[in-house]
């Protein structure tokens, strides 16, 4: 059966269309909705940046840090990116071990993921306070140029940071429940569902990194 025939069979057959548990399907539909929310934020940012007559602040300079006398552009953002990718890697492996029914390693890898996520949020808090206190960036204006820079920055990274925070909490809860044995009979698909959410948060960061920090 070709892939298109399978679509017809899935939609036309007298059966449930999507061959997966409702929990996983609902997570996918939630993520689809979230895709639209983040897209609208990024499109709003694009519109503000394209239509302003003032110079857009140079993100490379705004987010530069001086470490040991060295002026390094975007360094904290790069570290945050690597941390989030690493956490996605540990999450993917947690899902893998959950399907191997290796509960102990899966829980351990989920905790590692949560710790990495928490450190991401910590770095973001550092970045925000540096921008607000030292650089004087506000949602309504800043000393470097177009006033919309602050509004777009706080809105987009703030919403993403909330997602990471929620993900850390979700990971801790699910890791605890898996450890306690709540899913021993049902199977460990919950780890994959949690993983979908976590990978999505990483996915959104890929777009924010490209459009907000690098563009």
């Amino acid at each position: 059966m070709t892939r298109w025939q399978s679509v017809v069979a899935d939609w036309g057959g007298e059966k449930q269309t999507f061959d997966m548990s409702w929990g996983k399907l609902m997570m996918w539909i939630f993520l689809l909705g979230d895709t639209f929310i983040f897209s609208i934020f990024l499109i709003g940012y694009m519109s503000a940046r394209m239509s302003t007559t003032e110079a857009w602040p140079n993100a490379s300079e705004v987010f530069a840090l001086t470490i040991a006398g060295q002026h390094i552009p975007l360094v904290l953002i790069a570290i945050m990116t690597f941390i989030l990718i690493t956490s996605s890697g540990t999450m993917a492996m947690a899902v893998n071990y959950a399907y191997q029914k290796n509960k102990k390693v899966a829980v351990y890898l989920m905790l590692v993921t949560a710790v990495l996520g928490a450190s991401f949020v910590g770095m973001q808090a550092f970045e925000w306070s540096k921008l607000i206190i030292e650089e004087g960036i506000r949602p309504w204006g800043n000393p470097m140029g177009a006033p919309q820079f602050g509004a777009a920055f706080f809105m987009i990274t703030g919403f993403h940071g909330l997602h990471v925070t929620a993900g850390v909490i979700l990971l801790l809860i699910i890791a605890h429940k898996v450890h306690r044995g709540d899913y021993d009979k049902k199977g460990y698909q919950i780890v994959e569902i949690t993983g979908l959410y976590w990978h999505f948060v990483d996915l959104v960061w890929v777009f924010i990194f490209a459009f907000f920090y690098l563009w």
Partner: protein
Amino acid sequence: MNEQTKESVEKVHPIGMYLKVWFLLFLLSTFSYLVDFYQVQGMLRWSFILIFMFLKAGLILAIFMHVVWERMALKLLLFLPPLAILVFIALMSIESDYVFFNRLLSFFST
């Protein structure tokens, strides 16, 4: 048939595959960082940023989120609606150009 699909999605893949994807994501992130570090500018900068972005997003979706092993019906559910976003981007960039042009006219013309 249902059993088969379950197996293909929940199939246990070798850990090495995840490590390879992880390494690739690291590499691609380093490349996108270097675009900024070496201050590549203009069309070249934008193409590099977009290429590395789509490769990273594709790897995360396909392998980490297991989309390649899902059925076509789910892939359509995930990838058809976002096409509306592309239309929206096109509309808003035309609109923003228009606003920019009008701002130039009304702020700076005498």
